[in-house]
């Protein structure tokens, strides 16, 4: 206990004399940033997941063509899950001699479990947390115009007469399948039976929706899965909306990356600050050793000071981190959903653990050197302790960072990529810098005095310079990574959803109408995608083996074999599609097929396999000529199977296309519907808008995270420069006593620090490009492009920043009297 008191007193005395300021600052930055990001990421992730859940109007949905076993619902009740049901079917509505095929949706009173409905009550929209009351119907505006109705009129759905209560403008779980193509009529589930539309054998889709505790949902999901029949599906946010899933997943990964970056930056700062602390304590340690302190007592004495310091700084960091993320949420309030998930204690605790782990991983290696200080140093000041076995001990830091990265990303591959690429680059480049520094020694005799002293500043302790350059490089790399990945991610999203992304799909265009339809669009100067012929068919065998025997349950392949697929043919490879195996129609023969990559994997289909399809009562076979990768989220028609021209000629086909119609030209739709009554128009505006909102929210959040990471980076870079100044200040003061004037000293410092920053910047570009390439290719699956402008900006930023921070740090050498400087050291 006495020893601990002594450690506390030494800590207090050190902090009073300003020895610990930089180290404490670095630690506070580490914990503040990691807590803020951990909390922010956690809350945002959960908020986004909740919002994504709104797209399904629930956390988990069972879709089924028939009602489900009542014991399933009892199980959900037993697990305290909230429940709602929606039944969807098509029905022809007849009013005022007008006919309309409507998508009817009968919802229970608890619907929607997540999200809300919106109705148009001009001039504003009204938000509802439940659907229509029994006896009323809410309809799409198109229903009113098509059937010549107005609000308050009667509408007949089957045998049931309902009153039109509202114009529905937003439905959270509006899906892009057949039942949602047609204009919506939403009714209460209690009225369903009275419509008498749903009869045995009717094509009806049931959606059983559940929400509640994540653990209970997961238990329910596991319990349910083995009992599903082939026509039933469980959906959750990640697999239900692939376009949203991938955006969320990437955003989550970026958040993870930001955390890693801040930890790395802070780690570097801690290592540098501890190194300075250690070096400044060599003499004191020698005296303590002289006074009888044993080696392990020295370690204990300093170790316990660091633990106490860590606890204090972590507590301050936690509080600051908490406020920082609150401020971030406040800043983003207008963009985020009204209900933001509450901060979780686990995330707070995690910020704290990160602080302590980063401290021990990065501070321990330099600190261990104190153990090796010889007491003889009191007599011979030049005696320096041997450095600790660096590789063995830094592997501790790498290990700890590795575990943290892995915990954040939950992704072993990403962890290995970052660590592997980073370490390999550091090793190679460290050697390279060392060699170049040695070589530049030869330049010295040919340089003027100022340049010679500037360069010598770097060369005389080349080992120290190499580690400083590497440390600055890591910080710059972290900042560059944060910036580049964010920019590319956002560009990628914008590319995915440009402002004029198609917002309508037109299906069932008959071949004899196709040209007119296309002309009509062109005349109106409406941007449209290609027209693709569509034949509905089912995949039955692969190499003569029935598909059901090949695919695993619940896989994408399994889903694809249970329904009809849209089959098309094309001479050219569609835009956004990329061949990953084989080639695009090696010969012009019919009977070839190109399969989408994920489906091919799920169906275990290889090049050269023969696939048999049925269309109506006929069968045909095609050989797999290529495998394609494509993006489902482009809002253009996309296909699992594309055949070579001629393959599907024997079957009747219709055409599909998508186009962008600006908000103010919606009247054109009515003209289209009138002219092509058999054509189905699918409006994806709402889906598109939802997606755009989410992406812009994510973009904002990611921008703020970037600013945060950059701010932490600059602060730490500044602190890090500061930790390297002691010997320079000392030498500068000595030089002044020898008659060096201020301008000379200032210039040598500018040269030395600018060179240091410049080299660190150049290295940072090389490492960044390597890490970005690895990250994009193996982890984020984004296209890598060399960023040439980095070669200009990063070395410039490094030179400017390290130059300025360094010159500012040693300004006392120039401004104060040398004696004063020497006495302060």
């Amino acid at each position, binding site marked *: 206990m*006495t020893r601990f008191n*002594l450690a506390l*007193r030494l800590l207090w005395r050190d902090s009073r*004399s300003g020895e610990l300021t930089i180290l404490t600052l670095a630690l506070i930055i580490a914990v503040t940033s990691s807590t803020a990001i951990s909390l922010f990421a956690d809350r945002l992730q959960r908020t986004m997941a909740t919002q994504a859940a709104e797209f399904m109007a629930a956390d988990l949905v069972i879709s089924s063509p028939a009602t489900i076993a009542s014991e399933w619902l009892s199980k959900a009740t037993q697990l305290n899950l909230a429940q709602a049901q929606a039944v969807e079917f098509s029905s022809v509505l007849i009013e005022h001699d007008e006919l309309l095929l409507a998508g009817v949706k009968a919802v229970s009173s608890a619907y929607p479990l997540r999200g809300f409905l919106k109705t148009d009550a001009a001039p504003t929209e009204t938000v509802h947390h439940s659907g229509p009351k029994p006896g009323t119907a809410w309809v799409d505006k198109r229903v009113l115009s098509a059937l010549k109705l107005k609000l308050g009129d009667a509408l007949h759905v089957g045998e049931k007469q309902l009153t039109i209560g509202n114009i529905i403008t937003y439905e959270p779980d509006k899906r892009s399948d057949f039942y949602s193509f047609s204009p919506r009529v939403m009714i209460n589930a209690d009225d369903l039976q009275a419509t008498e539309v749903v009869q045995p054998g009717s094509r009806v889709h049931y959606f059983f929706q559940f929400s509640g505790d994540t653990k209970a949902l997961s238990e329910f999901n596991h319990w349910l899965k083995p009992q599903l029949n082939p026509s039933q599906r469980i959906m959750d946010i990640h697999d239900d909306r692939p376009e949203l899933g991938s955006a969320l997943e990437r955003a989550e990964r970026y958040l993870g990356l930001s955390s890693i970056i801040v930890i790395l930056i802070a780690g570097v700062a801690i290592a540098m600050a501890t190194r300075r602390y250690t070096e400044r304590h060599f003499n004191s340690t020698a005296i303590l050793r*002289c006074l*009888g302190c044993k*080696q392990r007592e020295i370690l204990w004495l300093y170790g316990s000071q660091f633990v106490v310091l860590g606890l204090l700084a972590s507590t301050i960091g936690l509080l600051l981190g908490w406020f920082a993320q609150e401020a971030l949420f406040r800043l983003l309030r207008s963009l985020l959903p009204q209900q933001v998930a509450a901060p979780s204690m686990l995330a707070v605790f995690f910020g704290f653990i990160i602080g302590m782990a980063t401290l021990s991983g990065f501070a321990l290696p330099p600190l261990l050197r104190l153990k090796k200080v*010889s007491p003889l140093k009191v*007599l011979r000041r030049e005696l320096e302790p041997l450095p600790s076995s660096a590789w063995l001990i830094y592997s501790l830091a790498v290990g700890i960072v590795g575990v943290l990265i892995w915990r954040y990303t939950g992704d072993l591959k990403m962890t290995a990529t970052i660590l592997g690429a980073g370490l390999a680059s550091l090793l190679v480049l460290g050697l390279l810098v060392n060699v170049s520094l040695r070589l530049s020694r030869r330049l010295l005799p040919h340089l003027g005095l100022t340049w010679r002293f500037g360069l010598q500043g770097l060369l005389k302790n080349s080992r120290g310079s190499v580690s400083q350059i590497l440390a600055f490089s890591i910080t710059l790399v972290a900042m560059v990574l944060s910036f580049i990945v964010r920019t590319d991610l956002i560009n990628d999203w914008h590319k995915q959803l440009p402002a004029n992304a198609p917002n309508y799909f037109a299906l069932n265009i008959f071949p004899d109408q196709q040209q007119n339809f296309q002309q009509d669009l062109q005349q109106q100067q409406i941007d449209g995608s290609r027209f693709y012929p569509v034949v509905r068919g089912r995949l039955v065998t692969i190499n003569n083996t029935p598909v059901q025997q090949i695919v695993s349950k619940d896989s994408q392949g399994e889903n694809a074999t249970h329904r009809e697929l849209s089959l098309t043919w094309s001479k050219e490879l569609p835009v956004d599609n990329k061949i990953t195996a084989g080639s695009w129609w090696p010969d012009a023969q019919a009977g070839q097929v190109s399969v989408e990559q994920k489906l091919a994997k799920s169906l275990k289909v290889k090049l050269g396999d023969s696939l048999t399809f049925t269309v109506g009562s006929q069968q045909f076979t095609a050989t797999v000529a290529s495998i394609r990768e494509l993006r489902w989220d482009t809002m253009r028609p996309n296909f699992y199977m594309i055949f070579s021209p001629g393959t599907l000629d024997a079957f009747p086909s219709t055409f599909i296309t998508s186009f962008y119609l600006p908000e103010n030209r919606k009247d054109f739709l009515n003209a289209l519907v009138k002219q092509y009554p058999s054509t189905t128009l699918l409006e994806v505006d709402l889906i598109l808008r939802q997606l755009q909102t989410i992406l812009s929210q994510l973009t904002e959040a990611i921008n703020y995270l970037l600013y945060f990471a950059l701010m932490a980076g600059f602060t730490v870079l500044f602190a890090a420069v500061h930790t390297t100044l002691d010997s320079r200040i000392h030498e500068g003061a000595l030089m002044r006593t020898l008659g060096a004037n201020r301008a000379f000293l200032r210039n040598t410092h500018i040269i030395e620090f600018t060179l240091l920053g410049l080299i660190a910047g150049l290295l940072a570009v090389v490492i960044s490009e390597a890490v970005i390439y690895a990250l994009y290719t193996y982890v984020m699956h984004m296209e890598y492009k060399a960023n040439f402008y980095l070669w200009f900006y990063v070395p410039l930023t490094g030179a400017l920043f390290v130059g300025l921070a360094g010159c500012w740090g040693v300004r006392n050498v120039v401004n104060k009297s040398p004696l004063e400087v020497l006495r302060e050291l």
Partner: protein
Amino acid sequence: MQTQPLNNVDRACSRQTGGIPTVPGIVTTENLSKSVVTSDGILHILSSIDLIIKSGESIAIVGESGSGKSTLIGLLAGLDTPTSGNVSLNGKLLTAMDEDGRAAMRNELVGFVFQAFQLLPGLTALENVMLPLELSGDKNAKASAAALLDRVGLSHRLSHTPQKLSGGEQQRVALARAFVTKPAILFADEPTGNLDSKTGAHIIDLLFELNLENKTTLILVTHDQALAARCQRTIRLDSGRIVES
């Protein structure tokens, strides 16, 4: 007349042998040598040093620069290890101990005064003097340290850090720190080397007064003939060998 408390050696000896020291000297060396390997070959810094220093004796080690004085004092105090030969403190073979064993010996028996003062920069005068007592777990550290600082005339400087003290004042703090544990042996390495002659003379007076009060064995390294003359015995080194004892 006030009775002086037993110093550490007396206490240590009492514990071991009922008050009769087991060895003739409190510090003894036997064939002590130190050499280092340099790029020009082996450099012999000390060769075959045999010494017996009795308890309470005051010894001056003198010699030219580079004659091995500081190396010898480092070996005697257990701050360094010899290439060959033995050093015993209070009958215990230092050369048979590991670093932690030697550290324990230093804490128990030894005090130091250095040419460069070697005060801890972040600590006040009082805290610097308290430090060795705190390390040995003494609960009265503050009172003892304050009393000793008062004894060296620095009661008005207790809360000053070394940067705010003059060289003479710093060395007085160092003296207080050296004597506060009542060590059996005090090693002083050029204690006046960084001071002007008047201040140096004050420090030496103080050193000998404290030495007398505490019955400490004093081993000091110096260039100063006058200072050497105040010691009971002078050992002269030349090229790592004793040429006068």
